[in-house]
Each structure stands twice: as structure tokens, then as C-alpha cells.
């Protein structure tokens, strides 16, 4: 685990409403220490993506609004900054569902990631090479329009694009989605490498709890727009409920997907 510093990102009891009517987050608080990897877990629709977007301020583009609470980055309020300002501050989001620029080639997609950088072309090129080293497949497809690449290739492009900004903090939304198992491991290796070498902090929303908890330092579990459980990754891994509902482990080890349950057990924390 990387050295952990002081609080980098602090979310204080925020409430988010979409379209003026749909209340999605009902008071979420969490903290990311400098240099930490924090996992945000939870079922579909729990509000993970919404939380990340609240931080990166992409909510406004979806007619969503933070109506209560505050978000601090390096002890400064960032609620009213534009996404562009945030990227300049070093906070970048990798959006769920890839969101590549379809008509741009893979390489152009990656270059857009460096839009805010002012450290010269040579540096950018160096990072481009780095991304290609991480994802050799992208190098092969660099001249293809992103819209025509496969799902996994697009996911790699999206992640690579965020790396091109040289961020301090990455908000990763479901990085493993649609990636081959080998690659999932690789991506998390990259995360961990960036975290150790470059001191990049991560807030990552992930469904693949197994991997997420393997690499994260700390985890929060979200249900229905509220944090229901948090703790050191290690302790979460040991938690009975987490084991059953998120890791698919029962006391007898991993269950087969064939042994389907036809009833639902209640999660204890909801009781």
C-alpha cells in the first residue's frame, strides 16, 4: 500500500437531485487520502456514478445538481469549478460506458486527453508512448476511428485518454467493464503502479468487487444513495455480507453460478 497522506478529497454529506425531482444521493460522505486508492462499491443504481460525477462536476451536463453538502479538494471547495478547471487541478474522470470520440482515431482520442497540458509536445509524446506500452492493442489500432473499435479497445482508449492528462487524482468509473480477465488484472496493475510511482490517487467505482478490494486501501459501500458500510479494504473483505453479496463467496468457498438461489436474503445492514 502506498504511503497515505492527508485528506485529498473530502465529500461532505452531499445530496444530488436530477431534473429537479429525482433525488439520488441522500447524504454521501467520503474521504480520499492523498495517495490512496479508494473503492466505491454498490449495486446497480446505488449512486456510484452520480457520486463521481458530482466530484468532477459533470452532473450539470445531465441536469443534475448538488443541493446539499460540500466537496473539498486539497481543502478547497470545488463545487462550482468547471470540469476544465478540475482537470487543470489534476482531477480527471474516466466515464462509465467508455464515451470515446467516435469520429476521432484512437490516437486523436488519446491526444484530446492532453488538451489542458502546457508542457510541450515532447512530453505529451512521451506519455503517448507510455499509454501504448500499457495497451499495445491500441498501438495496433491507433489509426482506426474509435467508433469502429471493439468494446474493450474503447475502454482502453478511455482509460489511456485520462492518463494523458497527467492527473493527481483519477475518478475511475467501472474500468473493468467489458475487458478480458487478463486485461482487468493488467489495468489494476497499472492503477497500482501509477499510485505507487506517480502518487496518483484513485476513487474507483467498481462492480468487480474482488479485484477492487484486492487493490484498494479503503472501501465504501453505497446502497440507495447512502453509504452503508465503509472500512479498510482488508476488513471489508472479511465482512460476511460483503463476502456473500459482493464476492459471491459463501462459507464453503465460491458458489457455482449454476447453484442459483431462488430467494433473496436480506442484507444485514438494511435490517
Amino acid at each position, binding site marked *: 500500500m502506498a504511503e497515505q497522506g492527508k485528506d485529498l478529497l473530502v465529500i461532505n454529506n452531499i445530496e444530488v*437531485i436530477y*431534473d*429537479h*425531482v*429525482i*433525488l439520488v444521493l441522500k447524504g454521501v460522505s467520503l474521504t480520499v487520502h492523498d495517495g490512496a486508492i479508494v473503492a466505491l462499491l454498490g449495486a446497480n443504481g446505488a449512486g456510484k456514478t452520480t457520486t463521481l460525477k458530482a466530484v468532477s462536476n459533470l452532473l450539470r451536463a445531465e441536469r443534475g445538481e448538488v443541493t446539499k453538502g460540500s466537496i473539498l479538494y486539497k481543502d478547497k471547495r470545488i463545487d462550482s469549478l468547471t470540469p476544465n478547471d478540475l482537470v487543470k487541478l489534476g482531477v480527471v474522470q474516466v466515464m462509465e460506458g467508455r464515451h470515446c470520440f467516435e469520429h476521432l482515431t484512437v490516437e486523436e482520442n488519446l491526444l484530446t486527453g492532453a488538451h489542458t497540458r502546457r508542457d510541450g509536445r515532447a512530453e505529451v509524446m512521451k506519455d503517448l508512448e507510455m499509454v501504448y506500452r500499457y495497451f499495445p492493442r491500441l498501438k495496433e489500432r491507433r489509426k482506426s476511428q474509435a467508433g469502429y473499435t471493439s468494446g474493450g479497445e474503447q475502454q482502453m482508449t478511455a482509460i489511456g485518454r485520462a492518463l494523458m492528462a497527467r492527473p493527481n487524482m483519477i475518478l475511475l468509473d467501472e474500468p473493468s467493464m467489458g475487458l478480458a480477465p487478463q486485461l482487468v488484472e493488467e489495468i489494476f496493475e497499472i492503477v497500482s503502479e501509477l499510485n505507487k510511482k506517480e502518487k496518483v490517487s484513485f476513487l474507483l467505482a467498481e462492480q468487480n468487487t474482488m479485484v477492487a478490494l484486492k487493490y484498494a486501501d479503503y472501501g465504501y459501500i453505497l446502497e440507495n444513495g447512502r453509504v452503508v458500510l465503509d472500512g479498510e479494504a482488508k476488513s471489508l473483505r472479511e465482512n460476511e455480507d460483503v463476502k456473500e453479496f459482493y464476492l459471491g463467496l459463501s462459507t464453503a468457498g465460491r458458489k457455482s453460478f449454476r447453484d442459483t438461489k431462488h430467494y433473496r436474503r436480506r442484507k444485514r445492514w438494511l435490517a
Partner: protein
Amino acid sequence: MLYRESGQFKTSYRADQAIFPIRQDRIALMVLLAVVFILVPFVADEYWLGSILTPLLVLSLAAIGLNILTGYAGQLSLGTAGFMAVGAFAAYNLNLRVPELPLIVDFLLAGVFAALVGMVFGLPSLRIKGFYLAVATLAAQFFIEWVFTHVGWFTNYSSSGVISAPPMVIMGVTVDSAVEKYLLTLVMVAVLALAAKNMVRSRIGRSWMAVRDKDVSAEVIGIPLLATKLSAFGISSFYCGVAGALWTYCYLGTVEPAAFDLSRSFQVLFMIIIGGVGSILGSFLGAGFIVLLPILLNNIAAMIGHGTLQADTMANLEHIIFGGLIIFFLIVEPHGLARLWQIAKEKLRLWPFPY
């Protein structure tokens, strides 16, 4: 608290499939129909009936037509007025050349002709999409306008190309007062609006929306793209055609290409965008907005600006306010008045609790 569906249980799919599953909505509709059919003809004066309500209804019908094509089937069209013109000229020529046909049949056949023309111009939609498709419909718009200006047969070789609409006789009754015209229009519009509402909540409507939202997956489900798009073009143009016929017979009183120029197409397009793309109710709301607002502004202008040098400024102010309001509404609700209405209802449902 007044607007609640709680306590209204539906015990059959039939009940759930009704147009207005909520009782309050049904009552509201009944009241509305009673008002427009019974009250309005008694209280409204000739000006309101003849120059505001009738054109408003006719344009609502055209807007429904365009909404079917653009709102439901997702095919952007700028040729609405062209298809209206086909309807208008078809109705005139049918009346002239086959006088035995009842006028209502003329109107419906006019719609059918418009539908055929619409389908011809809809053919390219299989390949051409989005704003590019707008060009196909613009081609239709200009070409149709040109044909009616240049082929004398359509205007019965009148020297100026403007003909006044013949008197309307329906089942022996002459329809010529403002009230009669209003009622005729109202009946046609109400029936056709109901039919449109029915179609959009049936199979054909679902296939339009499917093509609009994601044509590739629509096709994978088994929806043939060309047939679906053509049906949208056809039915949409049918509505426009009937609207065109009503426009000349019940409102303008003349048949001429200039009444169906590009600006009319845009006018109808504005209606559906302001009112709500993909909403039958929105077609009416949008038509109301676009027809009434300028008149309202103009009336206000006439009231305060009368006789002074300011009249010039007032006319332009009208434009500015109109444009400004369009933008304002979009920012408040990009999905149009219909959605605004819906959100209001949703809030009402929760009221007095905020969320």
C-alpha cells in the same frame, strides 16, 4: 393532494391500456371536450373562432403530422408545408373534377395523395439520416411549391395561380360561418388526433419510436426499416395533407402555393419542438404557443405603441421576445412544453412533499 393515482387500482390490462389511466385526467379531458365543443362556439366571437382557434386547430393537426414523422419516427422534415400544399390542391381538384364526391371524402383523399407524395420523398430516408435528410424534405418542399406554381392544370389555368376555395357543402349543409368552420375543423382534428394517439401507443407507434431511438437494434428485433420509415412518411403526410385542405377551405379561403412556403414548414417545426417532440399533446401546446404568442405580443404592441414612432421598435421587440422565449423555454425544459406539463403533474403528485 388533489392529483393522485393512489386508490385507483387497475385490475385488468385493458384498464391499464386506456389512454388516460388516471381518473383526474379523464375528467379533465371530458371537461375540455365539453368546453371546446359546446361552450366555445357559444361564447367565442367570430374573430376568435375564425382567425385564432380554427387556424390553431389546423396547425395543430399539421404539427401532429410532423410529430409522427419527426417526433416519433425521428426523421427530421422541413417539407411539412409542401405536403400540406399537396393536400390543399388535391382537395380543390377533386372537388372541381369529381364533384360527385362528398367533401369529407375529398379531404380524406387529399390526405391520401399527400401520403403518396410523402412516401416518394421518404424513400431516400433509408440511406440518408439526420440533418442530411432535411435536404430531401426541403427538396420536396421547393419542388412541390414549384410544381403548383408552374403546372397550370392544378390551378385550373387561373391566370394568377391563386384560386378561391369553392363553398363547402357537407351533406347538404353549407358550411360558411366561422362557427361552422370551427366545428368542422374541430371534429376532424379531434378524430385524427385520437387516431394518432392510438397509433403511437400501438405496434406501429412503437416501431416508429424504435427506429428513432436506435435503428440498428430496431432492425435486429425484426422491424423492417424502410417499411417503417415509409409508413411514418405516409401517415405523417396524410395528416399534413388533411391539414392543408382544411387550411384552405376552413381558414384562408384561397388555394395558392404561397400559403405553403418554407416559412410555414418552419412554423410547424417550431411548434413541435416548443410543444414537445414525440408528444401528441405537445403538438397542441406548441401550436398554441406559436400561434398565440405573436398575436398576443402584437396586441400588446398595438395597445402601448399605438400612434407613436415606437411602432417600428415594437415590431422588432416582438421578434426579440419571441426568440428569447423560445430560448428561455428550452433552457428550462429542453423537451418542450409537454414535458414541462408532465413534470408539473409529477410534482403535483408528490405535493406537498418536495421529492
